[in-house]
């Protein structure tokens, strides 16, 4: 699998997208994932773009949290113009972006829970918390390899996105209610889910 698909979506671009998102956030990551791709390539009628890339006159669907993340949702004016292979490649790169966002969130969760005390010990030492963090680490590692070796397999990419939605939620829960603030740490993970909803065709979503 690795040999047959690496030329379609090289591990380098996957790693780069993850790094950009982890370091600079969602808008920068999405920009990297969509290099050379415009809104018309979206599989549905809405495309997620970095706000800076929205064309003048485009119809934008307002969304408060997306605005704060520097992401815009624009109505796609024409039918998708890219092949299924290219679309899957975009999905794989966007998966890497979301991997970076989830890791960024998990890093902040560990900092947050290390500083917090419950029952006389740092909350991060609680077994239920440790289990969640361990699962997050293990699955992000596994998903990175999946995106590298199966970047051309549409079902594998679509399923990776669903798993990333789950992981984003699991990481957000570690913050308690502060993870539910619009200005809180989990906003990027939620908006990244919306971005994926625009760019990735789910397995049972073909109509």
């Amino acid at each position, binding site marked *: 699998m690795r040999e047959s698909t690496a030329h379609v979506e090289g591990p380098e671009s996957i790693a780069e997208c993850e790094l950009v998102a982890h370091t600079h956030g969602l808008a920068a990551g999405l920009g990297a994932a969509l290099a050379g791709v415009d809104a018309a390539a*979206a*599989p*549905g*009628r*809405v495309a997620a773009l970095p706000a800076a890339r929205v064309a003048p006159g485009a119809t934008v*669907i307002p*969304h408060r*949290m997306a605005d704060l993340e520097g992401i815009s*949702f624009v109505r796609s004016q024409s039918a998708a113009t890219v092949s299924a292979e290219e679309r899957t490649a975009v999905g794989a790169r966007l998966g890497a972006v979301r991997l970076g966002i989830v890791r960024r969130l998990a890093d902040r969760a560990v900092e947050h829970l290390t500083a*917090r*005390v*419950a*029952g006389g010990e740092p909350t991060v030492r*609680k077994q*239920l*918390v440790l289990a969640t963090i361990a699962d997050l680490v293990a699955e992000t590692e596994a998903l990175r390899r999946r995106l590298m070796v199966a970047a051309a397999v549409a079902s594998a990419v679509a399923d990776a996105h*669903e798993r990333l*939605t*789950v992981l984003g*939620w699991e990481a*957000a*829960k570690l913050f*308690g*209610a502060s993870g*539910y*603030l*619009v*200005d*809180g740490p*989990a*906003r990027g993970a*939620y908006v990244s*889910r*919306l971005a994926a*909803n*625009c*760019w*990735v*065709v*789910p*397995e*049972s*979503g*073909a*109509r």
Partner: protein
Amino acid sequence: MTGRDLDPALLELRDVCRQIADDLRSRALAVDADPDDASRHLDAPSLALLRTASTPKRFRQDDLPLRIAEYTDSCLARAVANVELARGDAGILSANTGPSLAGLAIDALGDEAQQELFYRALADGRTWTFFAMTEPGRGSDATAMKTRLERDPDVGHRLTGVKRYVANAARGSIGVVYARTGPSALSIRAALVTCPAPGFTGRPLEMIGLRGARFGEMSFDGVHVPEDMVLGRHLPASQRGIWGAGRAFNLMRVQIAAQALGVAFAICDYVCEQRPGAPGAELVRARLDAARELLYDIAVAVDRAPTDPRPPSIVKLHTTALAVELTRWAERALGPGSLLEHPLLEKWSRDVCAFEFMDGTGNILRLHIAPDTAPVRED
């Protein structure tokens, strides 16, 4: 499906709540977009009816249709009603005035005069209430509470501390605030507090979902609390604080579980309407029906044993996770761009996450559910 046969009164309650749900749905997106404008919905007959129905019978100002009058009679009635109401929309439910969670605490801990004061204050239909337990940095760990209720010989008590993620924090006029009078767990007490008051400030926090609740922060800087506003004075010492409110917490958890399930039903209904024959719909419907059976069984268990925290924890853990999971199924079923093209679906995807944080996170619930000791080995 085969399942529980509700008695005729509960079936009627369910049916009237289903009718109200249509009106709630029609207001859902407006409240989400502008939760500060919730007051313009308060005169809606549906919300007025729910306010009265959630008020104990002896404090009701208006007569109610018999069909909804049973709302406060049992945990099962609340469960039946809340599934159907949240199937309309949970966000507008949280924007309504009325006793809400504070009412359950007042019912459990308030003496006759305190209950009278609380419910008479709500009679105008424009009064929001608050239930302030959670604190910044301490989450659901009530025993780590820092807010102090200190005796002041001149005025009774002074309340000092900060509460966070409290519904109606800035707009509430009366409610319940938990604080400690000393270092021990038994010294955690509840007080009936009215706002505005000297030393009090409230501010809303912008939350991702369930925005109608207007969660926020409350700061108390030596707020005067007269002696007769301290709750539980007429109860034995062991029942005055958080343990005395055990039944109230259990009712809250079942009610929140019911609302999570109601939103999950709404998501399923919506997907099936938009895409008849959606893949997985049959399985989803079966899981929802089973979750409703669990909810009803546990509501009956709470009516029989009101202070056992385990059953409500089980159902809240399950229905919250199920609702969150169903948002992902809806995304799959409706395809690319679905969350942006279906604003209700996007809103519900945010709303369901709120239930995780309300009255015990999943991990707190797990600690209630898991047995304290290893199973006994049977030889």
